[in-house]
Structures are given as C-alpha cells and as structure tokens.
C-alpha cells in the first residue's frame, strides 16, 4: 500500500529558511575559497622565498668563487714573482676554496636548466684555469728567489679570469632575471590574494546583509501575519460571543418551553383528576358514550347498580346494557338513542330498561346529552335515574 505523499512545505517561512541556508552556504563557500587562496599563496610565498634564498645563495656562491679565484691568481702571481712557499700554499688553498664554491654553485643551479648550463661552462673554464695554475705552481720552484713575472702577453691568467668573470656575470644575470620573474609572480599572487580576500569579505558582508534583510523581511511578514491572525481572532471571538449569546437565548427559550410543557401537563392532569372526582362522586349512574354508542367511561354508581366491572364494559355498545322500555315513544322510528345521537338531540327522562350482571332488568329513566366540539357531535353522556311511575318522555 502506497503511503500518502506528504505535501512539500511551501510556506513563506520555509522559503526564507531555505534562502538563509543558501546564503550561509555561499558564505561558507566564499570563506573556504578565501582560505584556500590564502593557503596557496602562503605556500607559494614560502616556495618563492626558498627560490629567492637559493638564487641569492647562488649569486653569493658565484661571487665567492670568483673572489677565491682572484685570490688564487694573486697568490699565483706573487708566487711566480717571489717563489714564496707561503704564496704557493695560499694559491693552492684558494684553488680548493674555488673548487668548493663551484660545487655549491652547481648544486644551487640544478633546478634551472639555463643556470645549470651556465654553471657547467663556468666549471669548465675554472677547471682549465685550475689546471693551468697547478702547472705553473709546479713549474716554479719554491726557493724564494725573485723573478720578473711574465708580461701580459705571456700570462693567460688575466684573460681566463676575465672569461670566468664574464660567465659568472652571465650566471648572475640569469639569476637576477629569475628573481625578477619570481618577484613579478609573487606580486601578482599577492594581488590575487588581496583581491580574493577583500572581494570575499565584501561578498560575505553583502551576503550577510542580504540574509539580514531576508530575516528582517521574514520578521515583518510574521508580524503582519500575527496582526492579521489577531484581527481574525478578535472577529472570531466576537462571532463566538454572538453565537454563544444566540445559543444561550435559544437554550433559555427551550427551557421556557419545557417549563410550559411541564406546567400544561401537570395542570391538565390536575384538571382531569378533578373532573373524574366530580363525575365519580355523583349518586346517579353516568355512562359516557362515543358517537357510535360505544361505552368509553362509566362511574362507580353504574357499576354498583349493575354489578358489572368497568373493563368488561369498555368499548361495548351501550345498547347491550340499555334498551328503550316497551311502549316508550318513538320506537316505531328506530332506536331512540341512535336517532337522538345521529340528530344531536337531547333526551330527558326517557324510559328505559337497565340490564345487570345477572341479566335482570331494572326500569330507569335516562337523560342523554350529546357532547359537541363546535358543530360536531363527538359523543354523549347518559345519566340514569330511578324510574318514576308514569314518567314518559316525548321526543324533544
């Protein structure tokens, strides 16, 4: 059985929440980008710093190498002139120092192809000069005797030194050029980072401002809705009070009607009871009949005269109990009781015979009074009395 789908929440509040979540997600993203850019820039700065240090070390090492080479040349010249063992030793030492520095230069120039090639050329020239210098050192005895050094044409040392100095100068130029490139790149990166950070900060401030505006709008909307709700509630309250008053009025009316009903019922019961008392207290037998001459009520006096019981008489025809006395007037026209009831006439002192429980008959005189409801005869009342000798009733 498929579960019913829960409708998506599209209320303004959920829209605002979604917007704020999106805004803060973007803020977090921007902060992350700023952090990444800053970290990358810091890493590049460290790398660049290393490169700058290496380049400066290269330049320094090359310079030192040249210095020691120059010292070696000076020591050589002095040795060649003086034959001093001290100068020989100094020259050899300077050449070793030079060896040491060219190794450093080569190591530092490894990372750049041009610098590496240049360092290789410098090393070649240096090796040549070192070889030449060692040859000269070995050729001149170190006896301390002075000799006139060879002139410029016989001494290749100056031109070799000059060549090496030129190559070192080219190496320095390459290194300085690379420094320039690094500086430019570093500046560019710094600018990018600066723009990234400030731009990110500005964007975040704008986003946070936007979020604040959304929140403010949402609060204002909620306040408006709350005001509308309060107004609706006030209207509803008035309506409820009105309806409650209506219900109370109706309830009060119903209570009044119930009271009247109870009163009417009680009053009628009281009335019927009183009427029954009146009828039951009569000495004369009373028979109440319907329009069709059926017995509907008798009083105790009748039961006493006839020895019959009331339930046995109910709904029986009164003619089973009463019949006109023989010789009574009007018999040739039919049963006088039936005729009188059908015509709505009264009968007074009409001679009749009353039959009791033991089938004995008793002469009586009856009075019949039709009961009327407006123009209609709805029943009748028969009152019996002891028959008086010679009493006859003419039809009235």
């Amino acid at each position, binding site marked *: 059985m498929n579960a019913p789908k829960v409708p998506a929440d599209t209320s303004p509040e959920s829209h605002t929440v979604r917007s704020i979540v999106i805004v803060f997600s973007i803020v977090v993203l921007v902060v992350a980008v700023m952090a990444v850019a800053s970290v990358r820039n810091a890493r590049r700065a460290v790398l660049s710093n290393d490169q700058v240090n290496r380049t400066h070390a290269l330049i320094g090492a090359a310079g030192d190498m040249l210095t020691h080479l120059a010292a070696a040349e000076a020591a050589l010249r002095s040795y060649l002139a003086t034959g001093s063992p001290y100068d020989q030793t100094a020259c050899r030492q300077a050449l070793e120092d030079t060896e040491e520095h060219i190794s450093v230069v080569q190591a530092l120039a490894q990372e750049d192809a041009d610098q590496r090639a240049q360092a290789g050329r410098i090393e070649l020239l240096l090796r040549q000069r070192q070889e030449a210098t060692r040859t000269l050192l070995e050729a001149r005895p170190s006896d301390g005797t002075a000799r006139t050094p060879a002139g410029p044409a016989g001494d290749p040392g100056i031109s070799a030194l000059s060549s090496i100095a030129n190559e070192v100068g080219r190496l320095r130029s390459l290194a300085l050029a690379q420094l320039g490139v690094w500086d430019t790149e570093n500046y560019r990166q710094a600018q990018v980072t600066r723009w990234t950070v400030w731009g990110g900060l500005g964007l975040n401030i704008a986003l946070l401002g936007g979020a604040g505006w959304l929140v403010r709008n949402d609060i204002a909307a909620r306040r408006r809705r709350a005001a509308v709700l309060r107004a609706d509630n006030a209207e509803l309250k008035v309506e409820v009070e009105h309806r409650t008053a209506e219900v109370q009025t109706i309830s009060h009316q119903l*209570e*009044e009607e119930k*009271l*009247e009903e*109870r*009163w*009417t019922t*009680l*009053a*009628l019961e*009281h*009335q019927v009871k*009183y009427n029954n008392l009146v009828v039951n207290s009569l000495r004369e037998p009373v028979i109440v009949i319907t329009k069709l001459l059926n017995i509907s009520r008798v009083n105790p006096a009748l039961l006493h005269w006839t020895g019959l019981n009331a339930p046995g008489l109910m709904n029986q025809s009164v003619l089973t109990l009463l019949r006109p006395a023989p010789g009574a007037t009007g018999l040739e026209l039919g049963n006088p009781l039936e005729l009188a009831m059908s015509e709505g006439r009264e009968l007074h002192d009409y001679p009749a015979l009353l039959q009791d429980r033991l089938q004995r008959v008793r002469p009586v005189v009856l009075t019949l009074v039709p009961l009327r409801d407006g123009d209609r005869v709805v029943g009748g009342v028969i009152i019996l009395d002891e028959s008086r000798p010679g009493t006859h009733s003419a039809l009235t």
Partner: protein
Amino acid sequence: MKTHILLVDDETEIRDLIALAFSNRGYRCTSVATGREARQAARNDPPDLIVCDLQLEDEDGLVLLADLKEAVPHAPRILLTGVLLDPKVAETSLAGLISAYLPKPTRLSKVVEEANRLLGRSAPGAA
C-alpha cells in the same frame, strides 16, 4: 430589591414550577402549602403580589385571600385554580376579593404577564 411574590398551593410540583417561572424573570418568590404558612409568611415578609389556589389542604383559598387582603391591602391577588369557574362569573362575584382569575391550564407566561400588569410593570425584576 426584587419584587416579592407569595405563592400558595398545596401541590409541591405546581408551586415549584410557578416559582421557577417567576424567578427566571427576576422575581423573588416565597412558596407555601397551607393557609397558616401563608399568613405567617405575609406577616414576616409582606409580599408585593399573591398567587393563590382555591382548594388548599387546610382551608378554602377564598377565606385565606380575604385575610390576606386585610393584612397586605396593597398587594394584588390572583386566584389560580384547576376548579373551572366561568371567568366572567368569577371576576364579577369575586371582584372585591381578587384582582384576577386564571384557570390552571393557562400558560405560565400568561400568568407572569398578568402579574406584571397588576404590578404596573412592563418588565419584571428589581424595584
């Protein structure tokens, strides 16, 4: 102070219903069952109007009304009874004793209306 009505009837349920009908309309009611109690109540707290039945347990309502007329002459007297009298005959022959005759099946609202008329008020309630 609410208008005070003295109710005299030997049947409890009838007394209660009439008292409720008057109370709902802002009257103060004293209900008694006998003539003796009615005389006592009238002495202790004279009513502004009397409603009395004809057949009481201990005496005739008309005798009681005659005594109450002397004791509280300013209070109108309504005869409210289940004994059916001809209204015209009742009001004519009893004119000196009662202010109005009402048979018992009369609606309670009519009884209250008659009381208002006799008290000279358009609405029931406080004096």
